[in-house]
Every structure is written in structure tokens, then in C-alpha cells.
């Protein structure tokens, strides 16, 4: 209990509302995320998971409500927030005509990562995600899964203490999905925080200590490491 209290809150969201025209995507959503947590955003397609991630990373702004990420309002200080956090977007691919190595150098320049640690991190992640032999191949020639690994790596090159991951295992083979799970657990055990959006119930239940369940009409916060069975029961009642 004492340990919980002493943890720093990295993300706090209060009464967040977002709509596109007549379509309400997020309605009075509130939650907070302390450091070291794996926080899941779970829900079927089209309920606003990606919109929420976009708001938290300053890519979009809400209609009302307040949001603080690392003490900043993301849509007002979007480059400062993005400088500190890592983002794995759902749909983005790496630039087609750069090689992964060139792309990581490009990310390194934008994020002002020193040469030595950049090189070290590139090699570490390429080895961990098994694409060392593809480092000098054009990204357009990589498979979807390999491109996903490259995007995964770009989000982690600067060792961020807060990472936003939108659909982390889409396009990955089962072996690599296990590797990603392992990574998420390891990374959070080092005190880092991960916010992941997914529609995979089992994946979320295995990894997340808290889950925000989104449906088309409400958001419910499920605390205390909900099991897959509990999640399924919850979703049968609400989805």
C-alpha cells in the first residue's frame, strides 16, 4: 500500500470527452497511471482506443477534459511529450526507402540520441527482435512483421520511461508475440511504464495490472490484474 502511494503518477486523465461530428468516441473517461505499470486499453474495433492513444501523445486534442502526461498537456506541448515518451503507432510503417539502420539514425537525429548509445541500442534491439541481418535492407523489402519490429525498435531507442504501444502484436508471428510479452514484462520490471492498446483479451490479461475497458458507450477501469475469465465475463456483459 505504501509502495503504491509513493509511485509517481505519469499519466492522469480526467473527464475526457472526444467526438467527431455527431459521433461520440470517448465520453467522460478518467484514469491515472503510476510509474512501473503496464496499463491496458482494451475494447473492440472502433471504440476509440487509437483516439485515446493519439490524445495522450499529442496527435489529437479532446473536446473537453484534462490530460497530463509527464506533467505536460500533450496537445499543447506535443514535441516535448513525444521527445520523452516512446510511441509505437498502429498503422505506421517505417519509411519505405530507408534501411532500418538509416531509419534508426534518422530517429536518433530527431531525438538527439548520442552516437554511441544509439549504435549500442540499435544492435541490442535488432538482436533481441531477430532482424540483425535485415538492418541494411530497404524497409520496403521487409515483411509486415519485420517492419513492425523496426517500428518497435524506433520507439525504444532513447530508453523512454513511458511507452505507448498501439496493437503491439499485430503482424507478429506467435514466437515473436511471446518475445514481445517477455519484453513488456522485463521493461516494466525495470520501473518503466507501458500503455498498450489492444483487442486481444488474453494478451491484456497476462500483462496488464490495470485495464481500461472501452465500449461504444462507456469506459470502465478494471483494477487488480483481472484474469482472462474475468475479462471475458465483463465483456460479455458490456460489449
Amino acid at each position, binding site marked *: 500500500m505504501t509502495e503504491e502511494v509513493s509511485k509517481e503518477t505519469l499519466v492522469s486523465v480526467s473527464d475526457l470527452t472526444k467526438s467527431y461530428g455527431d459521433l461520440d468516441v470517448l465520453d467522460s473517461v478518467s484514469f491515472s497511471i503510476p510509474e512501473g505499470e503496464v496499463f491496458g486499453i482494451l475494447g473492440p474495433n472502433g471504440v476509440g482506443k487509437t483516439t485515446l492513444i493519439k490524445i495522450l501523445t499529442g496527435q489529437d486534442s479532446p473536446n473537453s477534459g484534462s490530460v497530463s502526461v509527464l506533467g505536460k498537456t500533450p496537445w499543447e506541448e506535443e514535441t516535448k511529450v513525444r521527445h520523452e515518451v516512446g510511441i509505437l503507432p498502429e498503422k505506421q510503417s517505417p*519509411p519505405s526507402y530507408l534501411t532500418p539502420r538509416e531509419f534508426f539514425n534518422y530517429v536518433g537525429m530527431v531525438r538527439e540520441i548520442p552516437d554511441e548509445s544509439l549504435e549500442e541500442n540499435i544492435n541490442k534491439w535488432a538482436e533481441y527482435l531477430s532482424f540483425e541481418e535485415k538492418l541494411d535492407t530497404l524497409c520496403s523489402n521487409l515483411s509486415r512483421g519485420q517492419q513492425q519490429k523496426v517500428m518497435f525498435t524506433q520507439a525504444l531507442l532513447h530508453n523512454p520511461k513511458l511507452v505507448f504501444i498501439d496493437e503491439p502484436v499485430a503482424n507478429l508471428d506467435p514466437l515473436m508475440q511471446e518475445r514481445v510479452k517477455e519484453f513488456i514484462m522485463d521493461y516494466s520490471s525495470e520501473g518503466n511504464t507501458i500503455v498498450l492498446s489492444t483487442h486481444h483479451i488474453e494478451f491484456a490479461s497476462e500483462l496488464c495490472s490495470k485495464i481500461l475497458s472501452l465500449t461504444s458507450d462507456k469506459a470502465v477501469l478494471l483494477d487488480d490484474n483481472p484474469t482472462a475469465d474475468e475479462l471475458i465475463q465483463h465483456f460479455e456483459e458490456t460489449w
Partner: protein
Amino acid sequence: MQGLFKYLVKEEFRFHTELFGLARFVGFPLFIILLISAGLFGAVELDLGTVDDVLLSVHGLFFILALQIGSVAFMASDAANDLLGDRSTLLYSHTYLPITQERLILVFAIKDVLFYLGLFVAPAIISMAIFLPLTIVDILLLTVSLGTAFAVGISTALFISSLGLKSRSQSVIMTILVISSLAILFSQTPLELTDVLISTAPSLVGKATAGIGSLLIMAIFSAYAARNLELSQESSEQKVRYAGFIKRLLNPKRDPDKSTSNIQPKTSAVVTRTFSDVLRSGGGLFKIGFTIAILVGMTAYLLNILNQTTQIAPQYVLTTTSIIALASYANYVWIFQDDSLDDYNYLPLNRNDIKSAKRYSFHLLNTTLLVVVALTSFALFGGEEFVLLGTLFLIPAMSEFYFEYTFTLASFDPMDFLFDTLRFNVFSVVLMLLFLPILIVGLFGILFLQPIQIFVFCLGMASIFWALSYVLIKFINDSEK
């Protein structure tokens, strides 16, 4: 074959009507009639040449237009994603249907030729029938002749696109070849060229020879293109080209103490990405060389005609450079077409960071090309040193203004703006008016200005362009969020 043709036409029609709106699309041929009629009216009223000269010019312009339209094929393997967004077209259906790429491309090319014949050539024929003293037989021959020139242009562009040039040396050699061919073609006297056109060849044998020759060129070029055009990237693993150039752009800039460049690392990173897209995508560096070659060819052709007609020697350096500068939109498109603002959302970059990088990239490409054009014009056609110097002062100012003015209207989506015909035409007319003093001085300045005065004029125009750019940056572009 007929079924495929029908669906390709339907797709093309829906694509255009979705982009332009039905009314504007249907009104487009009327716009062409008005445009060509205005040109023909001017040519007849000012007595700018014989009927054959006018016919020759129209053939030349349509051949160039077809080269330009056909050059879209340079981006064949990227087109589905880059040009059409998420749209998928029937042209790519050989990847999931039992149909060969050769057949698809051939039917697609026939459809394209017929479609654009309706859109451009038919209205041009109507204008010429109104303004030129032509008989029914002349009009029929002209229809065949102009259609053939257009089809030869399309098949030539397809053929060159299908050569798959991406390396620097191949690109440079091919650009020189294309420029030389166009220069030779356009430096012929009207009499020599009229012999190779179906409508103007003096004898029946001449007309038949011109027709058969054109058909042969079309058949060989189209067959080669159908077999070799790369429609998908997956067909072969692409080589990592221009790695040295990309590495130089990326390498030592992260540590400010080691940096030899005065540009921001963020800017340099986005410039790198932009040039990797431009240089490594379909057509490579050559697609830029090809576009410039067409523009230079057309400019030289028009200046040649004007020179012959008015007997006034233009200042080639200033005139050619400013006409090419007027057509900088193609370079603006190259810089912006492969990415969007969303592609940078996961990085700590804002709109202004990306715009700065795009401006830098535009100067790197456009300003450099204009300097090459100015120096080449000077080497080929000669001229006054003061005029060359003035032109070199003018180039960065024209580039800067062109970028800021275009960005004000087209922002990060030049293709969307290009398809917005009405706004794009207004944009072009305003640009033309601003460049008009330079064109007048370039074409006729010799009659009333000394070279040193032209130099001073260029400095004055450069100051105006810098001032206008400053206003756009200060009050419009950089204040946007």
C-alpha cells in the same frame, strides 16, 4: 479484353469525377477549347506563322503533354500507395487475378490514350476547325495525326519509364539523351518536321510513311513497356542506392561539436527521409531529369518559334530559367508526395520543423536545378555575363517565393491541390502575373535595356520575391498551427 477495357474506363471516369466533381470534369473539355481557341486566335490575329507552323506547334505541345502524362508510369510501383492513397486500382489486379501484367498494361495504355484523346485532343480539333481554314478531309487527317502524336508521346514515356533507371550514372546518361533528342527534334525547321506528321506531309506516300513509322514506334515501345514496367515492388529486391549520399546527410550532425553543417539535426533528418523517397522510389533521379528535359525542350521550342517570328533575340538565360522556375510545381510535388504530416506523429517534430525541412529540400532540389538550367542555357545559347549574374541572384529568391506561395495554398498535399482545378488555375494565373515582368524583360528587354540594367532589374525582382516570401512566412505560413 472488351470487358477489361470497359471496367478500366469506368474506373478512370469515377476516379476523375470523384477528384474534380462531375460538373467540373465534364466542363474540362470546354476549358481546353477556350484555351486553345485563345491561342489560335492570337496566332492568327498576330500573324505568327503559316497554318502548317500552327499545326506543327499544336502537335509538339500535345506530344510533350503526352510525355508528361505518361511519365506517371515512373511511379508505377509506388503509385498505388503514394499517388492514390489507400485506393487500389484494377491496374494492380494481376497480383490476385489470373491475368497477365502485359495484357493489363496494354489495355490500360489503350484506355489512357483514348480517354485523353476525348479529354484533350478532341477539344483541340474543335478549336482548330473553328479558327483555321481546314477542309473536312484536313480535319479527319488532323484527328488521326494529333491522336497519333499523343499516343507516340504516351508510349515513349512508358518505354522510358520501363527501363527502370535508378542509378546515378544511368540517370545522368538518359537525361542527356532525352534532352539531346528533344533539342534535335525541336531545332529542326518547320519544313523538315512537317514531313513527319500525317496531317502535314505533302504527299500520300509521305502521310503513309509517317503513319506506319508512328505505329511501329508505338508498337515496339508499348510492347517493351508492357513486359518490363515494374508494377509492384515485391517482384524483386531493390538495391540500396545513394547510400553514400544518405549517409552524408545523416552522419555527423547529432553531436553539435562535430557538426560541419549549420542545419538543425531535426531538419537534416527529415531532409534525408525526403531525398531517400525522391531518389530511391520508382524512376529514381531520372524522373526529375526527364521532367526538366521536357520543360527545357518545350521552352526552347517556344523561344525558337518566337525568335523566328519576331526576329527579336531573347535573353535565353533569363527567359529559360524563369519559365522553368514557373513550372517548379513538379519539384514541389516530388518533395511532398511520399509522406504526410501523420508520418511524423510518433516523433518529437511539429509542423514547422517539417515545413523547414521541406523548404530546405525544395531549395536543394529546385534551386540547384535552376542554377544548372541557367548555366546550361548560357553555355548553349550564349548571352551577357551581367544577365547571367542577375539570373543567378534571382534564382534563390524565385525558389523561396515559389515555395512559400505554394505552401500557403497547397500545404503538405500538392496532389490534392493539383486536382482542385479551379484553385490551381487561379494559383497559376497569379504566379504568371508575378513572373510576367521577368518574362517581358527576358523576351524583349534587349530592345530597351542595357545588360547592366537587366542585372539591376533582376536584383529588384529578387528583392520583391524575398519581401513577398517574408510576408507569407511572417503573417500566414508560420503562424498556422
